[in-house]
């Protein structure tokens, strides 16, 4: 039974490689000099959020590119709500008409165009077409919704198991309970303190598991890159920033604007520095998570891409071994980044509620 699970897991991993493999080799036969840029484009495309949930793509013998996946709802605000399925855009190959307006997907973004789908540029090669407010349920949104549902299911069942199993976790909760305890005992309490930690626990637990699960999903062959998206990490860091500053006590603000225990001149010098620190702290959070996950994906996919560039036994197997090793490290990074984000959030909350008994 266990063996079967292993085999299916391995198959799943390889299936994504095969998807890439067919893509690469066929292109290789067609025009081998283009392979590098092809892989580069593939990686770039993977890192971006997309309007459809693509699992893979292949090129038919006629040289036509076929995408495997499904459409997702596109939601636009363009003087009114505009909704349609992303399949209508045909991966940027078609112009979709809604009412009197035409929309076209161009480099992962939806622009308003004329009936022919003309994209115009300014001298800096920037697109000048109008861009409606895009609130589409993209691949990342769907993945986040899935993660949220998964988390709700998992932790609801853990919470229920305490009631039904006499205060002892049952099932998958047995795995997650120690993690919850770890976050409480080794992240929240030491950083925030015994008297204040409780009100931050929900947030810390939520972001920890949210980031962790999304990082792990990012390593799945589905080609998801949610936590490596700057909008997502910005949203998370913004929440940490808001919670820190909205729950901060007088002491925290005193330490920022009028540092106690230093000469008046120093107080004036320190205030802008401290104020900058308030913004830099969450900013470092958002950049750290984004950069780590983004870099991990780039390295991993580049190594997989190398297999097709080498295209021989020695080089390709070497890059495979490297990609395999990096994959294992990425599993660790997935957990580590979730831990660091949670840990630092807890640390900032700790600053916000710290009570200073003595002036220093």
């Amino acid at each position, binding site marked *: 039974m266990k063996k079967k699970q292993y085999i299916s897991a391995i198959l799943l991993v390889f299936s994504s490689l095969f998807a890439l493999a067919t893509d690469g080799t066929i292109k290789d036969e067609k025009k081998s000099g283009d392979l590098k840029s092809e892989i580069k484009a593939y990686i770039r495309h993977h890192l*971006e*959020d997309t309007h459809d949930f693509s699992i893979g793509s292949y090129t038919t013998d006629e040289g036509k590119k076929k995408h495997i996946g499904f459409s997702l709802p596109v*939601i636009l605000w363009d003087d009114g709500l505009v909704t349609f399925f992303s399949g209508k855009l045909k991966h940027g190959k078609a112009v979709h008409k809604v009412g009197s307006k035409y929309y076209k997907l161009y480099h992962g973004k939806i622009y308003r165009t004329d009936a022919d789908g003309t994209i115009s540029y300014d001298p800096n090669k920037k697109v000048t077409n109008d861009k409606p*407010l*895009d*609130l*589409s*349920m*993209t691949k*990342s*949104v769907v993945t*986040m*919704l899935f993660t*949220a549902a998964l*988390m*709700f299911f998992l*932790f*609801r069942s*853990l*919470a*229920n198991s*305490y*009631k039904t199993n006499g*205060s*002892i976790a049952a099932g998958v909760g047995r795995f997650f*309970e120690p993690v*919850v*305890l770890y976050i*409480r005992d080794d992240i929240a309490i030491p950083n925030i303190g015994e008297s204040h930690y*409780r009100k931050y*626990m*929900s*947030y810390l*637990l*939520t*972001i920890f598991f*949210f980031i962790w699960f999304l990082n792990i999903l990012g390593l799945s062959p589905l080609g998801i890159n949610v936590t490596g*998206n*700057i*909008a*997502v990490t*910005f*949203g*998370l860091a*913004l*929440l940490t920033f808001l919670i820190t500053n909205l729950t901060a006590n007088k002491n925290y603000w005193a330490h920022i604007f009028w540092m106690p225990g230093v000469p008046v001149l120093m107080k004036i010098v320190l205030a802008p520095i401290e104020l900058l620190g308030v913004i830099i702290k969450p900013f470092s959070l958002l950049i750290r998570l984004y950069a780590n996950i983004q870099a991990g994906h780039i390295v991993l996919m580049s190594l997989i891409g190398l297999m097709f560039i080498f295209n021989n036994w020695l080089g390709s197997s070497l890059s495979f071994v490297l990609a395999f090793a990096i994959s294992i490290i990425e599993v660790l990074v997935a957990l580590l980044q979730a831990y660091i984000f949670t840990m630092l959030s807890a640390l900032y909350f700790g600053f916000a509620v710290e009570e200073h008994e003595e002036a220093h």
Partner: protein
Amino acid sequence: MEKLLGEFSFGLFIWQTFIVVGLLLLLRKFAWNPILNAINDREEGIRSALQSAEDARAEMQNLQADNERILKEARAERDGLLKEARKIKQKMIDDAKDEAKTQAAQIMTQAQAAIETEKQAAVAELKQQVASISIEIAEKVTKETLADDKKQSKLVKKLLKDVNL
């Protein structure tokens, strides 16, 4: 930096914030609070159970100490009683011995007294007999004296010989 900002998708940001906040509120109500409360209650339970076990152990120890003390006291009392009994026994034996001794002495004195009386009586009787014998002898002697002096003395001698005390 410009590329980074170009990558920034406002829609995704809105969705992400919405999802995380929604998830946070839902999980807080349905998962985190129940989980944390359950864990806290359990820990509290374990702590109090340990405390009561410790208390029970201390009580047990107290009881044991009490038992030991009582046992010791009982043992001491028993020893005391035994000692007393031994003393009494010795005393009784000694008393009996003394009594016996005095009685024996008394009996001895009485016996001696009796013997003395008997002896006195015997001596008296003997004296009487000697006296009567002497009288007899004297009688015979007196009878003989009349004839011969020689014979007289001879007779006395013979009679004296015959006297059987």
